[in-house]
């Protein structure tokens, strides 16, 4: 069974559209994350939720809105898509800071192309 699964795997859309990416983890973890990986492979944290509560909110345009209906799900909605939003978006989860350790488990990524 896939531990962290995100859908869709590929997303091609026009500028100005609104789209959502879904993520689910079956690891029983308390914390989930969204990352953006650009064309140069830099991976940047966008958001993190712990038990449905937002705990990390980096400098991200407010067109991006995360939603966590329960601790196993973290979705990402993007309004008014722009060309610069084209990237690979990764969902991840972790068991929080048990023992001061935060090992993260990643989904396979969603490759977003904005035309």
């Amino acid at each position: 069974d896939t531990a962290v699964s995100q859908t869709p795997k590929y997303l091609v859309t026009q500028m100005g559209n609104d789209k959502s990416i879904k993520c689910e983890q079956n690891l029983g973890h308390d914390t989930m994350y969204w990352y953006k990986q650009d064309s140069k492979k830099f991976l940047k944290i966008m958001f993190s939720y712990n038990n449905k509560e937002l705990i990390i909110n980096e400098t991200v345009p407010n067109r991006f809105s995360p939603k966590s209906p329960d601790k196993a799900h973290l979705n990402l909605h993007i309004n008014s898509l722009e060309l610069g939003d084209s990237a690979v978006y990764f969902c991840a989860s972790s068991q929080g800071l048990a023992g001061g350790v935060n090992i993260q488990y990643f989904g396979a990524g969603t490759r977003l192309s904005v035309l």
Partner: protein
Amino acid sequence: SQQGEEDPQALSIQEGENATMNCSYKTSINNLQWYRQNSGRGLVHLILIRSNEREKHSGRLRVTLDTSKKSSSLLITASRAADTASYFCATAPQAAGNKLTFGGGTRVLVKP
């Protein structure tokens, strides 16, 4: 700039050779982790070293940490074609909670 910066950005070696990559960071950390990313896939955790540790081994992987120099190295011994991937270091800064900060990665190509 990135909290963790890997060096070199790219590395090409023959199967059987060792691959070494380095990571430098800026702030005090609780631990440092290395992840691997195969092409088109998500990151996979490889190994974690705590700030009070200097060296750690896991199979063919050897990680060192020098907190005085704020640097770490990852050594892959006896490389295989399947080791071809990008390798990222991730730092867990003190007082940063659950946040990990990733570097830009080292792309390793192991030629058969």
